[in-house]
């Protein structure tokens, strides 16, 4: 029997671990810090398993308020927890990947002076992420939302001496704040429309929401609310055009790239929209926007992965692209497919990042793939696990990514939402791109001749057990989890009650029907009738051909305009730096010097003071100090008064 205190303990244990590691780590040592963090997150994982057993196994839904946060005007805002199947699954993913990353960190960060601080941060992250996924109301959701953003900021800037790291973390925070602005406004409108921020109350009242007095006439409240909430998701889940922070976030240590910027935090936006499905289903406009943004992100960000040479950035762009797939699924009302892809992606993308980290350690912190090559022989565990992750990412059957991605593409194909056509083709073409950049990474890093200097070459060796064990533990689900869970998660009514899909919009069911049911073998067999499968194969083949042998066969493109546009990341970073960052600073300088200092303060305020000084200088001239001046003026005055009294009366 799961008690409420067990549920509360799941997020609180990592919080306690984070505080202990952060406050006492410096005094009690590194082992103390990592044990605090690992045990507390381990507890969160165990608690999640216990909770999931009851929630998933017996169909219990926990929904309770913990304490009242504030109240006014007859409305109470509370902190509280909701654990249904959707949350239980997220808790398992978060705590499992987090635990793997904690163990991996013991090896990866072994020589870093900020060891204790790092463990404190990642345990804190687990707390924040659990608060986010376990919230039963919008306010706590926002708390977790911003708290994971804070930890992300702290971890991107973990090596705060590096200028690039502190540039990246400020950028990440501010870009996310743009999203959060939308999110907070959305939450404000939810409160205005429903008089409550509790999920259950809001969702129950959602179908009846009409116009809202605070909106311009004719605006549909549901559409505005959903679009604003989605702006938040675009920030957190790095959707075009708020995607710019995620590649730069690779400045952080690799374990957090795996945990935060691939497996969990960046999927918060996906989770949020799925959680809000009762609202999104009310607005076709909003869904259509979600669909288009997701599809564009999936295709165009995938292309950027083709030209990057930094191994982590390749994986980062692939994350952007995969998040685009999930977002597109949300827009097609295929929420469960989006969550399913989130689920499988968490394993294989965390794996790929950790494998990249393993390579980076072996290469003495060299991340440029142009200087790698031939690592396959020297790092067999890393290679084979990376291969498993890559096949899953490329979506080849029967690896995990195949099931989730194919369902998404088919579901978008079945969707009748405006724009679904374009989205379908973008996602289908994306399958080729995905396979191509994945193969490119494998070919450049692990195959061919080694291109590193001799010193590095001699020291390349397989990483220690703390690194390889998590790799293997993540490789297993990367291979199997899709085949094992596709039937129960997509066809078994797993998300009933948590996710609402409007009538005639159950695109997941339509997709599964087209793919011959939700059996793992049936779907794998059906793949040979699908263009997606051949595109993926073509991507792999093209990758092997293009990137075997140095100099590369792609050199012929290197001067072309397309290549340069991709290398410039379509110019977004330059534009943002010039227009937003630079423009804001220029405007600020003008407002301060020209308006605040010159006009308001100098002209009006000190001007008034100067005016007084000037008039008193003038008045002072009268006070000469000479008695005969005063006597003369008295005489004049007496004469004037007399004259007035005598003649004018």
């Amino acid at each position: 029997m799961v008690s409420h205190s067990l549920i509360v303990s799941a997020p609180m244990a990592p919080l306690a671990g984070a505080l202990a590691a952060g406050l006492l780590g410096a005094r009690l040592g590194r082992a103390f810090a990592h044990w605090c963090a690992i045990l507390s997150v381990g507890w969160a994982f165990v608690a999640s398993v216990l909770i999931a057993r009851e929630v998933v196994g017996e169909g219990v839904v926990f929904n309770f308020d913990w304490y009242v946060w504030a109240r006014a005007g007859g409305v109470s805002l509370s902190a509280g927890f909701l654990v249904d199947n959707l949350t239980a699954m997220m808790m398992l993913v978060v705590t499992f990947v987090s635990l793997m990353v904690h163990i991996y960190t013991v090896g990866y960060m072994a020589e870093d002076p900020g060891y204790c601080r790092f463990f404190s941060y990642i345990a804190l992250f687990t707390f924040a992420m659990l608060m986010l996924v376990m919230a039963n109301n919008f306010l706590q959701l926002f708390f977790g939302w911003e708290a994971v953003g804070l930890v992300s900021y702290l971890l991107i800037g973990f090596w705060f001496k590096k200028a690039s790291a502190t540039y990246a973390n400020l950028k990440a925070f501010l870009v996310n704040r743009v999203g959060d602005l939308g999110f907070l406004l959305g939450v404000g409108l939810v409160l205005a429309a429903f008089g409550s921020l509790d999920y259950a109350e809001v969702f129950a009242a959602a179908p009846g929401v009409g116009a809202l007095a605070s909106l311009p006439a004719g605006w549909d409240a549901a559409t505005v609310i959903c679009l604003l909430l989605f702006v938040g998701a675009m920030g957190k889940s790095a959707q075009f055009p708020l995607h710019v922070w995620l590649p730069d976030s690779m400045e952080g240590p690799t374990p957090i790239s795996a945990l935060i910027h691939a497996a969990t935090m960046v999927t918060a936006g996906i989770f949020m929209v799925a959680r809000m499905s009762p609202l999104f289903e009310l607005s076709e406009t909003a869904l259509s926007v979600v669909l288009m943004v997701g599809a564009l992100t999936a295709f165009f960000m995938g292309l950027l992965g083709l030209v990057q040479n930094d191994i982590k950035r390749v994986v980062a762009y692939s994350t952007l692209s995969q998040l685009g797939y999930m977002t597109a699924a949300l827009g097609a009302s295929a929420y469960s497919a989006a969550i399913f892809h989130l689920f499988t992606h968490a394993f294989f993308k965390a794996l790929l990042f950790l494998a990249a980290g393993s390579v980076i350690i072996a290469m003495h912190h060299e991340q440029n793939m142009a200087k790698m090559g031939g690592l396959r022989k020297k790092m067999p565990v890393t290679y084979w696990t990376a291969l498993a992750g890559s096949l899953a990412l490329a979506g080849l059957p029967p690896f995990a990514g195949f099931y989730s991605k194919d369902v998404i593409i088919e579901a978008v194909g079945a969707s009748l939402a405006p724009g679904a056509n374009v989205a379908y083709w973008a996602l289908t073409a994306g399958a080729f791109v995905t396979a191509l950049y994945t193969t490119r990474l494998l070919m450049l890093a692990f195959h061919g001749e080694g291109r590193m200097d001799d010193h590095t070459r001699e020291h390349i060796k397989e990483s220690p057990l703390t690194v390889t064990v998590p790799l293997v533990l993540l490789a297993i689900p990367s291979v199997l989890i899709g085949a094992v869970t596709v039937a129960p998660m997509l066809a078994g009514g797993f998300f009933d009650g948590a996710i609402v899909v409007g009538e005639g919009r159950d695109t997941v069911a339509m997709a599964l029907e087209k793919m011959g049911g939700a059996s793992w073998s049936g779907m794998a067999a059906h793949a040979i009738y699908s263009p997606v499968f051949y595109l993926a194969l073509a991507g792999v083949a093209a990758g092997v051909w293009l990137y075997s042998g140095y100099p590369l066969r792609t050199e012929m493109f290197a001067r072309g305009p397309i290549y340069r546009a991709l290398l410039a990341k379509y110019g977004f970073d330059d534009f943002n730096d010039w227009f937003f960052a630079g423009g804001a600073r220029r405007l600020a300088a003008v407002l301060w010097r020209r308006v605040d200092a010159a006009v308001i303060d100098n002209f009006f305020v000190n001007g008034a003071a100067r005016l007084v000084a000037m008039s008193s200088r003038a008045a002072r001239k009268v006070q000469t100090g000479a008695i005969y001046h005063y006597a003369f003026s008295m005489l004049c005055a007496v004469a004037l008064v007399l004259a007035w009294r005598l003649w004018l009366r």
Partner: protein
Amino acid sequence: MTRGAGYNRGFAGDGLVDSLLSWLIWLPVAGGAGVLALGARGVCPYRLKALAGGVALAAFLLSLPLFFRFDGAAVGMQFVEDAPWIDRFGIRYALGADGFSVLMILLNTFTTLLVVAACWEVIQTRVAGYLAAFLIMSGLTNGVFAATDAVLFYVFWEATLIPLFIVIGVWGGERRVYAAVKFFLYTLTGSLLMLVALLYLYREAGSFSLAAFYDLPLTMGAQTAVFFAFLAAFAVKVPMTPVHTWLPDAHVEAPTGGSIVLAAVMLKLGAYGLLRLSLPIAPDASVEYAWLMIALSLVAIIYIGFVALAQEDIKKLIAYSSVAHMGFVTLGFFLFEPWGIVGGAFQMLSHGFVSGALFFCVGVVYDRMHTRKISDYGGVANTMPKYAALFMLFAMANAGLPGTSGFVGEAMVIFAAANVNIWLALAAATTLITGAAYTLYMYKRVMFGEAASDAVRGLKDINRRELAIMLAFAALVLFAGLWPLPFTDIMQPAAENLLAHVEKGKL
């Protein structure tokens, strides 16, 4: 229990706490006088500091019963005291506290305690005068928050100027005289118009009791005149744009303690005046000119947000950020929504914690480096890790991160705005970006990177006294952020009462 049916009529407390408010006013004042007297006799500075610390602690402890013995269910003034003062004009020594006052008095006594602790090693010249100024200021400020008689209010209001004027003018930086005079003249000029309005109200009501002013029917014309006369005093003090430019100068030149008190407490006097006088005495004019107040508040939030981004002096940056954050207070009040009033009042409290803490943070490095220029710093986190961690917490609170007190007031006001007009809410919510931008950009330039100079490399991390002060601020910032309920509940009846009174109007 309530005496009379009007708005905010008081009722008497029970025997034990009958004179609590008087104690809170006169104990610090007497303590300040005592410190001065002993200082004149040449008592050693550390004993003076100990005495001042004792007085501040006693005042803080005395203010706790205000909170814990406050009857949350009752409407109107509590801890009421009433005695004749100048009978001929019907002026009375009348005190009372509602939820707003209680929170402000607590904020004041708490801040005073920390300010006395903050000067421990830093102030070495004219110690007695410095300590006395803060103690006396603290008592007088409590008087403003507790007065329910207009003349008493006005006397306390003006009297608080003098100690701060002296603090800036004597212990301030290079341009201290300019800043002190500017501060004094600017705020005094505004206040004189308030005096005129109070005299007019006395003529109409036949008494200086605020309760009588609340019940006094006034035409729209009279209300408008009174409203703007009050506004002249309060807008300068808050400060609202465009009458804010005295604040950066005053902050930059003030010693650390002066800055803390100025930001944490003195600015609240203006906002408190709006709550205590403007809204209930001129409710219809307040509603009529709400558009102006809202517009000025949004200008403060957006325009000042940009101006803060351009600052090259840490203290000036935080001063401008204060103006932007106080914009949420005035915005919240003039939306006439429950979450707006509560959120605005909560923002007063939170701004007290956060800006006080930030000015203390600046003081910590200023004491070591003797510069406030951002470009003289860089990489401080390398040598001062504990300081960096706590400073980060306050920076995040300033940027309005949920879980800190900085989020609560802003979010509540934004929620209230979303209930009124989405564009208002959007304009207010831009603080999410600008607030984070100017705060974290400053933090980055001061704290991150390689140690910028030998001076930075030689910095020592905070000592225990500094740590204790920062932890005290941190505890409140987190507590009020994670569980604002005790604070919002205590002002809830006052807020509802005020809204109902404004809604009813006087016409």
